[in-house]
Each structure stands twice: as C-alpha cells, then as structure tokens.
C-alpha cells in the first residue's frame, strides 16, 4: 500500500473512532435528556440557573421536548402536577440548585399528598462543593425525603441513566408520587456511555400485589348481606383508571356512590345514584348516608380527617371494605373489616366477577327511599339574589356554559368547595384541585399543565381573590405561550374560608382576612396581555363566561360576589358527620 492510502485510511478510522466516542459517550446533560426522551417526556416545566445551565444548553438543541419557562419554580412544579393529573403520565419539572430547588418544595409536597406521578429534577452544586454551604447549595434530597416517594443525589454520571429510569418507574407504579433527582453540575458535563438499562433492580420495591381471592370473596359476601351500603370513591379510582368498574359496581348493586374531593369525576355527578362529595363540606345526604350505612366500600381512599370528621363515630354501624394499592392505608385511620391491598381496577374486576357469579340481587328499596328523602329535604342550596352575584351561581353558570365538559381547576378556599359542590363533573381527569395539602396558588399553574395536555379544551381556573395572587406571575407564562386559560375569580375581598371559620368559631374576630388593597384584576390581566372583565351584576355573569369560553385568548373574569356568603353544609372540624351546620 502506498503511504498516501495508508494515511487516508488512518485518518478515516480516526474519524470513525472519534465518531464512535461521540456517539457512545454523552455528557450527563445529554444522558438526562436522552433518558427523558426514552421515557416519553414531551414537556418540561422549568427555570434555569447556574447549576443547571448545562442541562438548558442541551435543551436548546433538543427537538422532541418542549420546555415551558415559568415565572417561578412553584409554577413549574404545579404545572407539571396539573399535566400529570390531566394525562396520567408523569409530570416533569426542572429547577436550579438552592433557591430554585427549595421553591419546588410546596409543589412536591402537594403532589405527594395527592399521589401524583412527578419527576422533579434539580441542579446541585458540583460534588466537590457539596456540604460546604456553598453558593446556592441546599440539601434538597434531605429537605424532600419526607415528601417524596424517593429522592436521588447523583454522584456518578454512570448511574444517571439508571436513576432516571428508576425515577420514572417509582413515580408511576404502585401508589404514584413525586421522585426527585438532584444533579450536581459537574455530573452534567462529565461523560459516560449511554446505556439504558432495560431491567430495574429494586429488590425492596414490589408494588404489584396479587389480589387476595379470599378477601374478594369476603367483600362479595359483605355486599350481598348489606342493607344500607354506600360506595365511597377516592382519587385512587381516578389514578387506577377504574371509573368503568366503579360504574359497573354501582349499577350491579344499586348502591349510592359518594366521593372525596380527590374522587370528583370518578363517578358522574348527574348519575341518579350519585350523592356528591362527603365530609366537611359534603352534601347532607352523603353525610347522612355514610353515617347510617351498614357497609362502606372505600375505593382508593385514605379516610382523610376532612372526610371522616370525628373518627370514633365515623360510619360506626358499618362494616368497611377498603381497597387500596398502598397496604399502609389499610387500617391507618379507619379499621377495615375487609382490607384488600391492590390496584382498584383489578380488585373491582375480580369483585364484579364474583358478585355476578353469585347472582347479586340486593333489595335496597327502603334505603334508596331514605336517601331520596334526604335529598329532597336537604338539597345543596343557597339564597338566590337579583342584585348581587352569589358565588355558587357563577359555578352553576360555568357548568351550564361549558355543558359540564370543561376542565376545571381550582385554588383553595370557599370557591374550591363551591366548585366541588356545584360543578357537575362527568368524567375522570377533568376536575383538578389540591386535595391533601390544600395549596393556595396551585390552580393557575396547574391550569397551564392541563391546557398543555389538552390544547383544544376549555379550561377554567376557579379562584379566590386571595389564592390567585399566590402565583399570579404565571399569567405571563400563560399569555406568552398563548394558553387560552380562563380564570374565574370569585372576588369576595376576603380570605373567605378563613373568614368563615372566624365568623363561626372565633366570635367574628376577622383578624387579617380582609383583603383590602387588592390589585385591579382587570388591569392586571391587561398588563399581562390577557383580557380582563369585571362582572358586578348577576345578569352579566353568563355573557362574560360565554365570551371567555369561546375566545382563544386568556381571560381573567373578576366576579364581584357576595362578601358574606359561606360554604354549607359544614361539619365543624372534629365533629361527627351528622353534626352539620347549615344543612
């Protein structure tokens, strides 16, 4: 061979080798994004900073993942949470180290309490700076240990792909929840071969539980013997996608169905067997039905104190069947006579089979009669008024204008409870609210996540004038990304829910719940480039809602409502379910 040919060959092979190295050895940031793509991630909500610049640099190159720049990390995590609730897929958010990471904490806790699959990625100072109180260092894995399903600090770039894979697996399987990955800056620039491990090695994690056939048999028997059964559906039914099975159980047994706040949408509100929500602000008929039931069938619920009221008197005549994916929920608050650990959908399918085989033929006529009487005697009601807008009326109108087909997000407070009471949901994953943590400021960013998941849908965030100010910076994100979100502020000039407690339990001492000094929400909308409308008369409610729902622009509707309106019925904290005020 001539030396020229030889040289050329060498050059070519050197290029090949270089290319091969380039292909196989990726930086941590590249590995992260490649792994996210492999997990099917389409959108990330995030905020940059020093520690995650290399990740952002890589995002700049990435075509398949949309990044939404929120105006606050809390906005990013709630948006990811809203996206997860709307789609059932894990939400992903990204923040820098230190303050970026700590700004995620509320949103992570929120997702944890409501069992929402979420992967939070935080930048961290370089490994060599860890533990020295370095600039923008926060021990975020330590801070979030009690509010995550798991948290990782990546110490070796070679572990990164595996960790991402594990994180998504943990977030989405079993009882879903948030997982955090803390990624030191030097790891994002170091290189390693990209290998996506097909198998996971988590010997301590066995979320799949076999449905125990004997327990299903016992549950079926209890149902066949019941005279006054009540089905109680929670967020777990929605997470498990078990609405069809729930409807089948209700149809087969004829039992009335109530739900927790997180269970709203699992069963159609318009169904004749639906009792609406149970608990502190549940309907009187749901509370009475649970109170007098002889069998309570809890599906994907955790018997939160907002549901049970005084535990010792809760459903005290009832046998309890409790089905939940998380065995630790069984017997945590309420003793279950028939505990069943497992996926609600699978368990219900098994239960339905057994019930059908046994010939399920319950005679619930007198129970139904009793419930119908309660429904007639104690309906949800409010005093209508001709000249001042009642907040409940606004919700009813949203329901009518959108024909119950809107995606409803809420903030936290009275408006949230009215939304749960008066909006008629027909489908799962259409009503989104912070149930467990009760996070004011959740609604607006969560609405962004919901709208990202369903670009064509009509999305309403039902807000209070207090809550809306907790993440109002996200109006900028909404307008910039042309998200046609509608915000309906039920403006009572108060932190209404707290004011209600002060009125009822603190001798009307309204300490610091008067919101005097509000911004002009119409001007605020305009400042952000959205449309703002102030609505002061009942007859203007409907046209405003119609305009907003039809428009492709973001709307802020400032409904000036009756300041003194309270949410009823109300079971005072710690009281029994039959001790309702204002039923």
């Amino acid at each position, binding site marked *: 061979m001539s030396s020229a040919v030889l040289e050329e060959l060498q050059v070519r092979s050197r290029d090949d080798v270089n290319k091969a190295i380039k292909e196989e050895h990726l930086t941590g940031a590249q590995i992260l994004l490649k792994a996210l793509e492999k997990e099917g991630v389409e959108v990330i909500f995030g905020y940059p900073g020093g520690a995650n610049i290399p990740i952002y640099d890589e995002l700049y190159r990435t075509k398949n993942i949309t990044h939404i720049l929120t105006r606050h990390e809390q906005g990013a995590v709630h948006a990811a949470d809203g996206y997860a609730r709307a789609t059932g897929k894990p939400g992903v958010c990204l923040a820098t180290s230190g303050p970026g990471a700590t700004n995620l904490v509320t949103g992570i806790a929120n997702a944890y309490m409501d069992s929402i699959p979420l992967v939070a990625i935080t930048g961290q100072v370089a490994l060599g700076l860890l533990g020295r109180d370095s600039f923008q260092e926060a021990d975020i*894995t*330590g801070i979030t*240990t*009690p509010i995550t*399903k*798991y*948290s990782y*600090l990546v*110490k070796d770039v070679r572990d990164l792909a595996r960790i991402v894979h594990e994180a998504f697996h*943990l977030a989405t399987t079993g009882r879903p929840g948030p997982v955090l990955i803390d990624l030191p800056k030097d790891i994002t620039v170091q290189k390693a071969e990209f290998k996506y491990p097909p198998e996971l090695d*988590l*010997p*301590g*994690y*066995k979320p799949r*539980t076999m449905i*125990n056939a004997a*327990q299903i048999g016992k549950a079926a028997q209890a149902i066949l013997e019941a005279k006054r059964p009540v089905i109680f559906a929670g967020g777990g039914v929605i997470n498990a996608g078990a609405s069809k099975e729930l409807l089948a159980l209700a149809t087969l047994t004829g039992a009335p169905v109530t739900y927790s706040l997180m269970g709203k949408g699992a069963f159609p509100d318009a169904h004749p067997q639906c009792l609406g929500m149970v608990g502190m602000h549940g309907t009187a008929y749901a509370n009475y039905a649970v109170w007098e039931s002889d069998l309570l069938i809890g599906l994907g619920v955790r018997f939160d104190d907002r549901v049970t009221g005084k535990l010792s008197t809760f459903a005290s005549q009832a046998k309890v069947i409790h089905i939940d994916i*998380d*065995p*630790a929920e*069984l*017997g*945590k608050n309420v003793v279950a006579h028939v*505990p*069943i*650990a497992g996926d609600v959908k699978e368990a219900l399918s098994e239960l339905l089979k057994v019930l059908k085989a046994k010939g399920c033929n319950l005679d619930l006529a007198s129970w139904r009669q009793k419930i119908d009487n309660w429904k007639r005697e104690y309906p949800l009601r409010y005093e209508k008024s001709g000249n001042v807008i009642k907040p409940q009326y606004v919700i009813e109108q949203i329901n009518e204008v959108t024909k119950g087909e809107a995606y409803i997000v809420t903030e936290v407070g009275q408006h949230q409870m009215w939304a749960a009471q008066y909006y008629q949901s027909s489908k799962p994953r259409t009503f989104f609210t912070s149930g467990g943590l009760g996070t004011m400021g959740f609604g607006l960013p969560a609405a962004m996540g919901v709208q990202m998941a369903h670009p064509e849908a009509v999305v309403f965030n039902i807000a209070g004038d207090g809550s809306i100010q907790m993440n109002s910076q996200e109006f900028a994100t909404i307008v910039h990304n042309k998200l046609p979100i509608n915000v309906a502020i039920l403006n009572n000039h108060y932190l209404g829910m707290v004011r209600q407690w002060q009125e009822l339990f603190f001798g009307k001492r309204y300490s610091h719940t008067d919101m005097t000094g509000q911004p002009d929400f119409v001007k605020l909308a305009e400042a952000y480039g959205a449309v703002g409308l102030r609505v002061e008369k009942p007859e203007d409610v409907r046209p405003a809602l119609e305009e907003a729902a039809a428009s492709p622009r973001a709307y802020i509707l400032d409904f000036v409502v009756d300041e003194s309106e309270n949410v009823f019925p109300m079971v005072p904290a710690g009281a029994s379910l039959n001790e309702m005020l204002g039923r």
Partner: protein
Amino acid sequence: MKHTLAVLVENRPGVLTRIAGLFARRGYNIDSLAVGRTDNPLISRMTIVVDGDDRVIEQVSKQLYKLIDVIKLTDITNDEYVDREMILIKVNADPAIRGEIMQIVEIFRARIVDIGRNSLIIEATGDEGKINAIESALRPFGIREVVRTGKIAMSRGPKHKNGKSQELL
C-alpha cells in the same frame, strides 16, 4: 408492648435517615436501632425495637415496608430468638477496690478491656436484663461513661417461625 423488628435494607445513601425520619415524623417511639452490614455488602440489617400496641406496630411495619430501600421486614417478637446487646462501661476503680470490681466482672462473665490509673473499662454482652444488671452492679463505684449498642437479634433455627413477615396482606 415492645416489638423487635428485623429489617433488611439496601445499602443506599440516606437509608438510615429515611428510616429514622419515618419514625420521627409519624410519631413512633424507637427504643433502639442497631445497624450493620450482612454477609452481603449491599445489604444491611437493622434491629429496631419499637414500643406500641398492635395497631401501632402494624402501621410502623407497613410504613417501613413502603420505603423503597426496605427489602424485608420481620416482626420476630413472638419468635424464639437470640438477642444481644453490648455495653462498654468506664468505672472508677482505685487500685484498692479493683478486686471487688473484678469479682463482679467475673460473675457476669464480662471482661476488662482497659485499665487506667483510676478507672477500668468493662465490656459485656448479653440480653437487655443482664446488661441492665451489670450496669446497676457497677453503679456504686461511680460510672464515668457508658455506651450501649442497642439490641441485635436473630431468630433461632433455619428460619423465623411465628414471625409475621410483612409480605403485604
């Protein structure tokens, strides 16, 4: 009632924090917690003594089992098991009374592991009762320092017998 839990965990970073943190935030009482690696360097075993009624212990077990790092959890309280604790006691020991102390050490089949000018360090292993007894026998001499390991325990025979393994319901 006191329960003894044998917990196998993965040796991942933060595992001890996760377990201790769980006890703290859910308000369970840890009596003692002893931890060390097993024959498999990737796996540690913890012996946790918890005080509580059956419902509390059931919740503790379920919540522990939920932790990703927890591989296996066994309540061996009602098993036949061997348990040991170790204590090191530094006790005042003027040369004049050393003989007396040495007698006590012998009775308890403990050992003297260090001799200072005016003190001795005594090492003893045994169940909790024995350890308590040797501590109180030495107290009159003036104890300067005590360190105890907390209880470690192992079921007798090839496998634990009555121990309800928390393999879900």
